[in-house]
């Protein structure tokens, strides 16, 4: 029987106020993005996988090899784990050239100086950095430094690659280019890849699968499509820009925990707990009570307006607080401003209902 390829881990530890307990699988060849707010424990999880923070409980196995298991006293030190780590601020050694930075890992794994530098040169060339081989890190741009860091992590041929906020240190202009490049380079690597980010777009572009972490726990995991259609937490809903409400199914309506009812089209057993998610674009706004079509209608008041490109996000306070997204013309037509009364209409068929 072949051994399971990739990372299989349960990491449990406490560090200061963080109480982390996360189960995680990343198959060989898979890219998983760990998404979560600041302080959720994402970086700590990466450090634990790399052996830079010890587990209190759990187990880390990579391609079937146990790297850390407190229960059996198994512990492979960081320098002997086949894991590459791209740090958030790159941490390129400032006293070494780009070439020697990349050669560092190969030298540590016993490669001779000449061969290590030749291999490092090939890595830099592959990443389009041949011209910068002799440059020291402070002479590199953010995007170049990021690629050197990637080359340095990949050169010793790890079986798991960890990337901590790979795009966070870059300015907005270079970010797009680097993201596209990173996607390409990640595709070339055949091991397991785990990246940490707080940007949902980065996660969706770069990863096959998303894992949402909040307060040290996995709250949801799935493909980008899953999570954007069916967020399970307020944080997840905010990430994908959806309204999220929770309630109990009663016939064909959902009685919301925070008050109010919504008529829905989906069928769920009566009495079951459900999540309700609504795209802001599906929330219609009217100046007067609309007649006919929408099943769900109520009146509220505009709480806030925010411009997003050619659309405007409207927070509507009322019996059921929702966020609507309308065109800029609609804002003028409806005379929307903070405090203005407004009618809300949502079609039953526009509401996603799923088990909580």
């Amino acid at each position: 029987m072949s051994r399971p390829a990739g990372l299989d881990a349960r990491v449990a530890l406490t560090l200061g106020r963080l109480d982390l307990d996360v189960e995680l699988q990343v198959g060989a060849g898979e890219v998983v993005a760990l998404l979560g707010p600041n302080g959720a424990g994402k970086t700590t999880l990466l450090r634990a996988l790399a052996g830079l923070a010890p587990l209190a409980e759990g187990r880390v196995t990579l391609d079937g090899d146990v790297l850390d298991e407190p229960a059996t006293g198994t512990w492979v030190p960081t320098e002997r784990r086949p894991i590459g780590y791209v740090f958030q601020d790159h941490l390129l050694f400032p006293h070494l050239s780009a070439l020697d930075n990349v050669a560092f890992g190969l030298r540590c794994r016993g490669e001779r100086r000449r061969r290590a530098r030749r291999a490092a040169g090939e890595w830099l060339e592959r990443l389009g950095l041949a011209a910068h081989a002799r440059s020291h890190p402070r002479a590199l741009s953010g995007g170049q430094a990021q690629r050197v860091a990637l080359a340095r992590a990949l050169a010793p041929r790890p079986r798991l690659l960890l990337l901590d906020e790979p795009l966070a240190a870059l300015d907005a202009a270079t970010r797009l280019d680097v993201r596209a490049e990173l996607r390409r380079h990640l595709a070339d690597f055949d091991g397991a890849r785990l990246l940490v980010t707080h940007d949902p777009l980065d996660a969706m572009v770069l990863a096959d699968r998303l894992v949402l972490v909040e307060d040290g726990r996995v709250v949801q995991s799935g493909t980008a499509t899953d999570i954007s259609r069916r967020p399970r937490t307020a944080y997840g809903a905010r990430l994908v820009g959806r309204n999220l409400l929770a309630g109990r199914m009663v016939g064909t309506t959902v009685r919301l925990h925070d008050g109010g009812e919504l008529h829905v089209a989906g069928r769920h057993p009566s009495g079951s707990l459900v999540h309700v998610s609504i795209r802001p674009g599906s929330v219609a706004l009217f100046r007067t009570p609309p007649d006919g079509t929408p099943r769900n209608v109520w009146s509220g008041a505009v709480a806030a307006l925010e411009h997003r490109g050619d659309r405007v996000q409207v927070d509507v306070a009322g019996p059921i607080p929702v966020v609507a997204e309308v065109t800029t013309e609609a804002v003028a037509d409806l005379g929307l401003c903070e405090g203005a009364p407004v009618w809300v209409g949502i079609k039953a068929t526009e509401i996603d209902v799923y088990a909580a």
Partner: protein
Amino acid sequence: MLVGLAGLAVAFVALPFVGLLQRAPWSGLPALLARPLVAEALGLSLSSALAATAISVVVGVPLAWVLARHDFPGRALVRALVTLPMVLPPVVGGAALLFALGRQGLVGRWLETQFGILLPFSTAGVVVAQTFVALPFLVVTVEAGLASGDPRYEDAAATLGASRWTAFRRVTLPLVAPSIVAGAVLCWARALGEFGATITFAGNLAGRTQTLPLAVFLALEDDRDAAIALSLVLVAVSLAVLVALRGRWFARL
């Protein structure tokens, strides 16, 4: 007002040197400096200070690393102990060394019976006394350098397969090199000027334990001109080192 006070401070520091220069027997200087006593004292001072600095670097840098990177019970105590010689009167340090490493001392007796080593009143004793008072200057400087650096560089090295020793040698050391240089200069300067601990522990034997400061002190009694000449040598050597290392040294301290 502030500028006036600053000027006063400069004058206060400069005045003794002016006094020294004004009393210098310039015409007789070459003859004074040519005396074997001077050359001996100077040679002994330079070499013993260099040896004390070398020992301090070899043991002090790892000590600074341990203090900066590892949290262990009693760390504050160890740190206080290491810096104690900075505030202690050197004579007290010398006396303590005598009780520990002297013929009748705790370790001294063992050293003599086991290895036939006698530290007090020997050139090696001079180096020991100087190391005792000068080591803290190196440790404190290097520890500050390590503390201001990012310990995650060592993490990065570990993820690339570097053992702790390799990471220390190839990453940590080069990154704190400026602090080590600065610390070594301070350490050397302190060792060069050492007087109290040396005279207490190693005595004042011409050619063996009589360093420049000791020679100056002795000469002040019976040969003022020689004392001034020796002092000038000490000032010149110190100044030369400061100027040579000015860039690194003043930039960091």
